């Protein structure tokens, strides 16, 4: 058990290293960088003082060095202008666009993103489970057909459209504020119950919007998985033992059909964070999605790179957690189904 855990944690290190290298290649792919773009702009205006400052920044952030050296500096494995100062030391880099350290720019946004994501995952599971189970147990009933239809609607509706419709409805009938993640007067204020309540209120619409298609997809998968399991012989065995239908369902087929969902957790995390970008733009949510988009457009390389690194870390950790949960739930994975033949 311990050795397995240790091995899994150790293997995350080279994985993240490889990912960081790939990320750096990708954000370096477009020609030029933030500062050279800026310099071209300033040169056309003839602002000598600003040009000097930019030249200083180029040296400061190592943009004049070769690619591999830049990468190593960013990573923290090579001395930069201020000595070893990179991700390994916990320093995320400097955002040119905002002209402050990345960690300060991202700061609260990352946490709010996680809040939105977790809320969405909970929403997805809470809604899709009862519906999926109902659809499978009452296959081809009127309820199944109606829910399936709604599910397909959910799959087919573009998220941003749904966002606009819900925003309108929420504002018109419930008096909910449009957009944002909290009431404006709480922004930048310390945490209070009022702020918390405001966040919950504002979370409602984004959660539904971001979660709809995932929920619809999950209903379909749960229904299909459970239908497969319900046919299996061990379910008949359970019935033949005299188990009541409800307990039979909970104990055997439902438990078996859980595996794919747990295995999915690792995938859901990054999917939600990147997939929600457009919705976040529409709803002007202060999450990481829009900022990542902007950072990539402006070639704000350290900001974009750090963002992507954080996403990658979340994914790797999510996979790790889902593997652990799977091993805990399924003895076949925990004990291994005998030797290989």
């Amino acid at each position, binding site marked *: *058990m311990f*050795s*397995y*855990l240790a*091995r899994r944690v150790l293997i995350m290190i080279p994985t993240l290293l490889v990912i960081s290298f790939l990320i750096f290649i990708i954000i370096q792919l477009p020609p030029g960088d933030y500062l050279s773009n800026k310099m071209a702009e300033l040169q056309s205006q003839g602002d000598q003082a600003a040009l000097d400052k930019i030249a200083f920044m180029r040296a400061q952030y190592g943009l004049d060095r070769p690619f591999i050296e830049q990468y190593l500096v960013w990573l923290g494995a090579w001395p930069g202008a201020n000595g070893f100062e990179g991700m390994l030391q916990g320093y995320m880099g400097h955002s040119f666009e905002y002209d402050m350290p990345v960690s300060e720019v991202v700061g609260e946004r990352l946490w709010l993103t996680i809040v939105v994501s977790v809320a969405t995952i909970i929403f997805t599971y809470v809604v899709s489970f009862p519906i999926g189970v109902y659809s499978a147990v009452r296959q081809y009933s009127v309820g199944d057909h109606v829910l399936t239809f709604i599910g397909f609607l959910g799959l087919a509706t573009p998220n941003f459209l749904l966002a606009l419709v819900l925003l309108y409805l929420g504002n018109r009938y419930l008096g909910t504020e449009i957009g944002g993640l909290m009431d404006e007067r709480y922004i930048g204020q310390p945490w209070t119950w009022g702020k918390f309540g405001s966040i919950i209120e504002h979370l409602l619409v984004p959660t539904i919007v971001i979660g709809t298609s995932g929920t619809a997809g999950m209903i379909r998968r749960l229904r299909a998985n459970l239908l497969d399991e319900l046919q*299996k*012989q*061990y379910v*008949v*065995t*359970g*019935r*033949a*033992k*005299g*188990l*009541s*239908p409800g307990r039979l369902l909970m*104990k*055997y087929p439902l*438990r*078996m059909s859980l595996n794919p969902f747990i295995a999915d957790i690792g995938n859901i995390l990054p999917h939600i964070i990147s997939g929600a970008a457009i919705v976040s733009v529409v709803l002007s949510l202060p999450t990481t999605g829009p900022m990542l988009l902007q950072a990539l457009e402006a070639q704000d390389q350290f900001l974009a790179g750090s963002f992507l690194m954080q996403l990658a870390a979340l994914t790797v950790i999510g996979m790790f957690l889902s593997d652990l949960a799977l*091993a805990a*739930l*399924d*003895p*076949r994975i*925990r*004990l*291994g*189904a*005998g*030797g*290989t*033949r």
Partner: protein
Amino acid sequence: MDNVLEVNDLEVEFLGPEGRIEAVRGVSFRIPRGKTVALVGESGSGKSVVSQAIMRILPRAGRIAKGQILFRASPGAAPVDIAGFADDDPALRQIRGGQISIIFQEPMTSLSPLHTIGNQVGEAYRLHVGDDPKEVERACVDILRLVGFPNPERAIHTYPFELSGGLRQRAMIAMALIARPSILVADEPTTALDVTIQAQILQLMKELQHKLGMAILMITHDLGVVANMADEIVVMYHGKVMEYGTLDHIFRAPEHPYLKALLKAVPRFDMAENERLVPIREIKAEAGSLLKSKEPWPAGATDTIPLLSVKNLNKTFGTRKRSLFGSSKGGQVKALDNVSFDVPRGTCVGLVGESGCGKTTTSKIIMRALRADSGKVVFNNRGAPLDVVTMGQDQMLTYRRRVQYIFQDPFSSLNPRMTVNQILSEPLIIHDIGSEEERNARIQELMRLVGLNAHYVRRYPHSFSGGQRQRIGIARSLALQPDLLICDEPVSALDVSIQAQVLNLLKDLKSELGLTYLFISHNLAVVDYMADHIVVMCAGHVVESSPRAEFFRNPVHPYSKALLSAVPEPNPDSRLDLRALLDGKASDPKAWPEPFTLNGSLVSHMVDVGGGHFVRMAGDKKQEGGRP
């Protein structure tokens, strides 16, 4: 007469997209208290549906249309009509699993892979007797010991996938019996098991019946099992009872033509030389000119060299040993240990043994699907010896045309997305034989050869029955006009009536087309019917090799004897003798009596006991670096 169960005029129907199907049409029989009733019939006869109706576990589309199922929990008690309950009536659930319980054919799929044996076995006890955890655990341990688990205290914490097939079926029986039911319904309980394991399970069921005083409803298509177990027999065909009577009546004086036909279709040990099985529906094989015209053999090519010669094959598999987490390289399993035998041209060699003995590994090495660690396989290619183990790609192509394979499972061995035409023409296309018209002519001929209507070539495999699919598989293997056919349990997945049909077809084809067979089976009666020479394998060793008649007259090796005595014969006079099974140690080379004991310290050889009959016996002490 005290009957624990009476079924009166039972009708069961299924409502499907194709309309209403009557699966059971007016069946009546009874089960006397403490006795065994066998329900016999081929697949589709409705016998399993009757058992599902009694348990009230019919699939969703099925329903009891008419009739009564009267159950008396104790002598003189008022009967309860099981057919009269609503689907989820708690009173029905109390009977189900508590008073009447069932065991199924497939012990692997019948148990949940996610729950421990103790959890699943104890569940019936918790539901019907009491749910004090200590008491449940004690009951579990008791019943597991009763069904012969070697270490029941440990077994309750194991998962089904950690157990062998035989132990899983024992766990299944324990689960059915833990609440001490009055009736045990056994739906083909041993069909998926080896003969030796089957004999043990049957014996166990008999003992338990005696101890617990329960009645057994045995559902099977194996008349050998019936003759060994049943007091009364119900023969079903197309949802109706054909014949009903005591064991003696059914086997000694069968009246109904269907039953007579069924009895004639089963291979027996006491068949006369050249006696043919009589299938219920005979098929006629027609060999056309195309398939008969084979490349001729040069004179004298097989006078001295056999068609296939296997010499000292060795193969070990590494097992991955897994602890709680992580895996490491574990022990090694010796799958084949100096396996040697010859297959002379024009004969049929039967390779016999239980699952795991290495017979399929051997056939895979012959097909070059696996590589042997050491040893030789030499194929006689029209007089030119071909070393199968070391041959290159181009020789392999020739070899593949000469040697073909017939698989056990007719369902998974045909691609469901290919038509019969595509299935049969694929080997011809791969080997670039003939033009399109020539190929079509050959396919037509192949279809006639296996007795199938040549118009069916555009159909997909799902529209054929198991026996027809197996014939398609045979046709595919014959498409390239091979010399040697490896038949890996070709009839073990088929019903008795179909089995006779396919066996006769294989026999006819052998003489018509001049084929040679390597026939792999665990069913000795089938091998007796097919083979000229018999090779018995156990735990990776060839333990006995003998001409057929000599082998059945005088089996020498203790394992061969155990195997022979484990075959249930369709004859009430020769019941199973379990003592010969050595308490399940028959397949353990260390437990064989002297001079057959193989424990690794002694060298063993095949000893000639006369008439081409060889038996493996232990010899001198193994010497360091010495020659075996």
